[in-house]
């Protein structure tokens, strides 16, 4: 075999076009967000301002842009990992209850930290690093449950998977409520903001670095493993027969997808639909090969949160800016139903 004329590797011309397009969208959204801000008008009211701001505000905006882009990319990659793992187009951190699991992990650690003694030490350790260990454990627990159920039942059809996710999510949600019930009432309000999802405007730099580094690392891993991911699109037996290490690959997908979901949850809370829709947008715009899909998903996920965050800078219905989770759900909900209908039509 000669190395000269191998089959054309993806991304194709269409894939490259899609990636460039998505990159431009992400860049434009980031640019808009950089120029869009909130200021005070002559009457002392809040208003939308356009333009480059002073240094302090610039820092806030850049930090917000990095947080939004990183969290969006992390959610997208996590969704892609779960969709590949479960061979199911509706899989995503939020649909599968992985976001709830991460939230439960966080709550559990907070509760432990309040107990005192050894429990407090464990809680404190889990809460180190903005709670990434706690939420990662919760996220991995949730995805492992879904994965084991899927194995036992010989796979899910898309709707069955959604049902399983709803139940997982509700169970962890109940766990969160139980823990809230156990902590002093004053603490209960703390999580309301987190549950709504928010993009931190001044996230600690180390957290942005960890999250950005993780997204970058997973992107590179996905890029390098793209031909394996492509080949794993075959049926299980066929994929094994051509030398795809399916079991190892799935372990990695589970761990990386769960880890990224946890990081996204720590950074922005349980934001819905971005993890579901970003891989679809990536696939639509870059074609079938995972080399393109991985990059496309990163860019699509980043774009989605950047656009949502830019839009909320200009929408104030009197109660301050709209929470970003409201925007993503308003757009993502109908899109999800569309995917559901499309799946039914194909079946």
């Amino acid at each position: 075999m000669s190395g000269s004329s191998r089959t054309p590797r993806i991304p194709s011309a269409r894939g490259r076009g899609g990636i460039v397009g998505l990159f431009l969208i992400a860049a434009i959204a980031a640019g808009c967000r950089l120029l869009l801000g909130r200021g005070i008008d002559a009457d002392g009211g809040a208003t939308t301002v356009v333009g480059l701001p002073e240094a302090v505000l610039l820092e806030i905006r850049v930090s917000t842009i990095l947080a939004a882009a990183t969290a969006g990319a992390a959610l997208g990659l996590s969704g892609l990992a779960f969709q590949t793992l479960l061979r199911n187009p509706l899989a995503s951190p939020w649909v599968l209850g992985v976001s709830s699991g991460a939230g439960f992990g966080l709550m559990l650690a907070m509760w432990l930290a309040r107990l005192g003694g050894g429990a407090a030490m464990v809680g404190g350790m889990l809460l180190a690093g903005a709670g990434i260990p706690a939420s990662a454990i919760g996220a991995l627990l949730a995805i492992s449950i879904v994965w084991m159920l899927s194995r036992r039942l010989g796979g899910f059809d898309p709707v069955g998977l959604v049902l399983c996710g709803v139940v997982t999510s509700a169970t962890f949600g109940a766990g969160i409520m139980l823990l809230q019930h156990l902590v002093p009432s004053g603490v209960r309000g703390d999580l309301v903001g987190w549950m709504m999802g928010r993009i931190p405007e001044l996230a600690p730099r180390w957290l942005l670095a960890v999250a950005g580094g993780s997204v970058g690392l997973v992107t590179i891993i996905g890029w390098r493993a793209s031909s394996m991911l492509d080949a794993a699109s075959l049926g299980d037996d066929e994929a094994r027969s051509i030398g795809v290490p399916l079991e190892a690959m799935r372990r990695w997908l589970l761990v990386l997808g769960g880890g990224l979901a946890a990081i996204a949850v720590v950074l922005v809370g349980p934001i819905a639909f971005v993890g579901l829709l970003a891989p679809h947008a990536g696939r639509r715009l870059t074609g079938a090969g995972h080399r393109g899909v991985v990059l496309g998903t990163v860019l699509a996920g980043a774009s989605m949160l950047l656009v949502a965050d830019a839009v909320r800078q200009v929408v104030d219905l009197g109660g301050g800016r709209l929470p970003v989770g409201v925007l993503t759900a308003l757009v993502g909900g109908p899109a999800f139903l569309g995917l559901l209908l499309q799946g039914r039509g194909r079946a």
Partner: protein
Amino acid sequence: MTKAAVRLSADGLTVRFGAVEAIAELAVAAPAGRVLAVLGRNASGKSTLLRCLAGVLTPTAGTVALDGRPLKDWPRAGRASRLGYLAQQPQLAGGFTVAESVAFGGHAVGGVAASAVGEALATVGLEPLADRPFGDLSVGQRQRAAMARVLVQVGADGVMILDEPFAAQDPGEVDRLIRVVRARAAEGAAVIAAVHDATVAHAIADDVLLLDGGRVCFAGAAGDGLSPDRLGRLFGLDFVAGPSGPTPRFGLGIMPSDDSA
């Protein structure tokens, strides 16, 4: 070729799914240059046997060896380039084209020449559909695309495990596939194929293995195995000798049959 070397051999193969024993104590040997047809009623364990032989299902007991070396000891790439598998129902998610699906045959060795993909597609008669999405193909076309992938994967003298690629084809395509398989065998390939149709088995096989309830009821030369008598007992149906092998006489209800197709 004088005394052909055994390429793939299995011994004591047993597979249990929970309490159900799919196959028990099977022994198989596939020498280079020969085609072994596996026949049996539905659920007689053909697919389970083939999946074990292809190394995609780990048997409950027993071993499979490729060129004398247990399958599990082979490095991934070395095994994949010698042992190919065609599933009964090929699947491919995502929007990959037919040509891309064939190129996956070269996954373990880092890719495959575009000319080889084209050649393989021409061999199975799918060249005009090379750039169509795999998902648009009919079942028969998917099986032929998977056949092309196996051809690209294992090279001329490889071992090919084919799980019933003939049933969904029209007669012209059955004939094409038979010729493809025979040509490969002539080049030194060892082939094990599950076959439903006795006339196809007659045309393709050097040896046959008749399975009943997960156990061997005959293993030997095709001429002996494919007698109307044996097939009649295996399938619970009357067979007569015809010009292209034993032919079932349908619709006569000679023997009570519960689930035979």
